[in-house]
């Protein structure tokens, strides 16, 4: 297993699998899966649904993951809820690095999965999907997903942990092409003089050429 050399990275992961303590591993995973501590962290609209999932009606504390921690040092589950702007990305990576291992990531909502409605050819502001930078365990689709979907997502994560299928580590970023095929209709600048002219009936405005 790859061990992170960054001194700021907390090495609480089990480094070697030469000797497997099968029963003990299972016990540990059972314990981990039943008390996930998510990081209190909303990026955009989905953050509100994350809050709603923790509030009176949906109350995800029923399932044992209601201890939302504001500090990444105490959390082991990052719910990426919202659009990842490029300015925010270094902060997300810092937060992820500060979380103790083993840690898990849920991509919550369309933006965290693949850019959502803000994805278009040539966009300049967002990262199209958190999985280009961090390893993601569970994807929860929706724009925004309902709180029930978040609960279903965390239950799915619990199942994965209990079956020993996930162990979060830092993986290198994968640079992939955006698969967006919509044509971008970028306009050229129009002439101000042309624009200020009073409208002449039934004469379409010729598009200005640069």
């Amino acid at each position, binding site marked *: 297993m790859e061990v992170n050399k960054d001194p700021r990275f907390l090495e609480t992961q089990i480094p070697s699998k030469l000797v497997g303590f099968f029963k003990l591993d299972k016990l540990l995973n059972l314990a981990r899966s039943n008390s996930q501590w998510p990081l209190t962290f909303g990026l955009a609209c989905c953050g509100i649904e994350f809050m709603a999932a923790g509030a009176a009606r949906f109350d995800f504390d029923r399932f044992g993951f209601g201890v939302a921690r504001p500090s990444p040092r105490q959390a082991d589950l990052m719910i990426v809820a919202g659009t990842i702007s490029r300015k925010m990305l*270094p902060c997300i990576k810092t937060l992820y690095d500060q979380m103790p291992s083993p840690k898990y990531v849920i991509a919550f909502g369309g933006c965290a999965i693949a850019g959502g409605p803000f994805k278009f050819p040539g966009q*300049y502001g967002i990262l199209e999907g958190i999985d280009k930078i961090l390893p993601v365990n569970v994807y929860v689709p929706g724009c925004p997903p309902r709180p029930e979907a978040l609960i279903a997502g965390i239950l799915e994560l619990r199942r994965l942990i209990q079956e020993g299928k996930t162990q979060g580590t830092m993986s290198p970023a994968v*640079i992939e092409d955006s698969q967006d095929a919509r044509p971008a209709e970028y*306009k050229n600048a129009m002439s101000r003089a042309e624009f200020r002219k009073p409208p002449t009936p039934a004469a379409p405005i010729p598009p200005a050429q640069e």
Partner: protein
Amino acid sequence: MPAVADPSLKQWLLETVQPDEFVEKDLKISGIHFEALVGADKIAGIAREFLKRGYYLESLTAVDFLECFEVVYHFDRQDSNARCCVKILTAKDSGHAPTLSGIYRSALWFEREAHEMFGIVFDGHPNLKNLLLPESSLIHPLLKSFKGEAKGSDVVQSLQLIDEDKRDFELAYPKSISQQGKDYYLNLGPQHPSTHGVLRILLHLNGERVLDGEPILGYSHRHHEKMMEIQNYLACWPNFGRLDYVGAMSYNFGYARLIERAMGVTPPPRVEYIRVIATELNRISSHLLWLGTFLMDLGAMTPFFYCFDEREKILDILEMATGERLTYDYFRFGGLDHDFTPDMAPAIKRFIPEFKMHLREYHQLITKNVIFMKRVHGMGVLSRENALAYGVTGPCLRASGVALDERRRDPYSIYPQLDFDIPVRADGDVFARYQVRMQEMEESLKIITQALEKMPEGPITLGKLPKNVPKGEYYSAVESPRGSFGIYLVSDGSLNPYRIKLRTPSFSNLNSLIDMIPGCFVSDVVAVLGSIDIVLPEIDR
């Protein structure tokens, strides 16, 4: 309030300034009284005159034309609808414009935004750096010559930013340790539970006391304005649902109003009633979310659960018609997406008395609570003058003693026919803002009750409308839960907008934080910030 243009101002402008161009506009269509094009050297004098006459700078933006940039200033009064527009032209290559930041402090951020988006240099601006984009970013995205970035550049640029961030951290960290003296800097956010999203405030502290603070924005910048330029008018609807996801109906209303005015159509009466009911229900749910999180910031956990419980009931009602829980795109041009279902009116009627009872309960729990009173009284005072200088609107302004409400100042839809008050407090502190919002919820209930009684039957759509907006410039504002939400649209008559500027209320409201927090403790910064009720994606856009 009648919409009167200030005749003496017009005279002053025509005689003293002698603008290069002066156009009287139709207020009903364009939303402004007149528009004047002046030389760049005259704009500071004009702004001073406007300030003297009690105008505030509502919006400042730029438009990219083939031969020049147009820098567009919108001024408006707090007591009546007297919006007017002043423009200057700047050259295309390294355009310069004089700064207004010495006159209107709201220009501080507006100009920084125009600088990064268009590359216009505002001479004399004290702090002209990127506001929404990363500081090392060199692109000017709202230029028409900016045709987007290559595929995969999001990852490349993001990795580069991670590197830069790490390097800057290592550079900055030893410096701040070796700093002598008692004062130091503290980052509040961008990941902080009480910044309601991803706001970062760089606090300059002496011990626990705040010397000054600077909000750093852009952590939720989602290029709404550029995106709208490349998609057609109908495809812009989801953007308005996601600008301010807590009060999305008002933003739907703003866009619907703008386009309907520009096209010169009026929606059927039933549509107007449904719109008002949905917007006011959404306003209550927005204020409830604010109340819960604001008190949670102050350390009270219980109201959070109480408020979310009530909020879910409103979401249930709205979901019947919209199918969504928060990012509504329910309105259409001249109509609605769906009619109210038959069981909605009874559900709303059941909800109103229930909610009134709960509101009384909140007052008993919170309003006279000693701990709460000690945290909020006299804290974060915003004076009338500062509110004017920063262009603050909404409950924050009404808590400072100015009764500005777009529903009364520039009446739209059926609001003139309804009987409701505009709650105003004079103190301007955190408690006043709390009181204003609490009373606004009651007023919204009054509006909903009346609108439900009078709601007529009828069609909910006008049928087919043209796909484009006539060539011209339009400005329209509505009252969102956070303040006056204005949209400035430049249309070239084609299928998509040429330029859309979103004048969002939280942007200006948050700007005034700079004046409110000096002298507070760090824990009070959270209280003051909570009382402004910001929504980050609406600020960063």
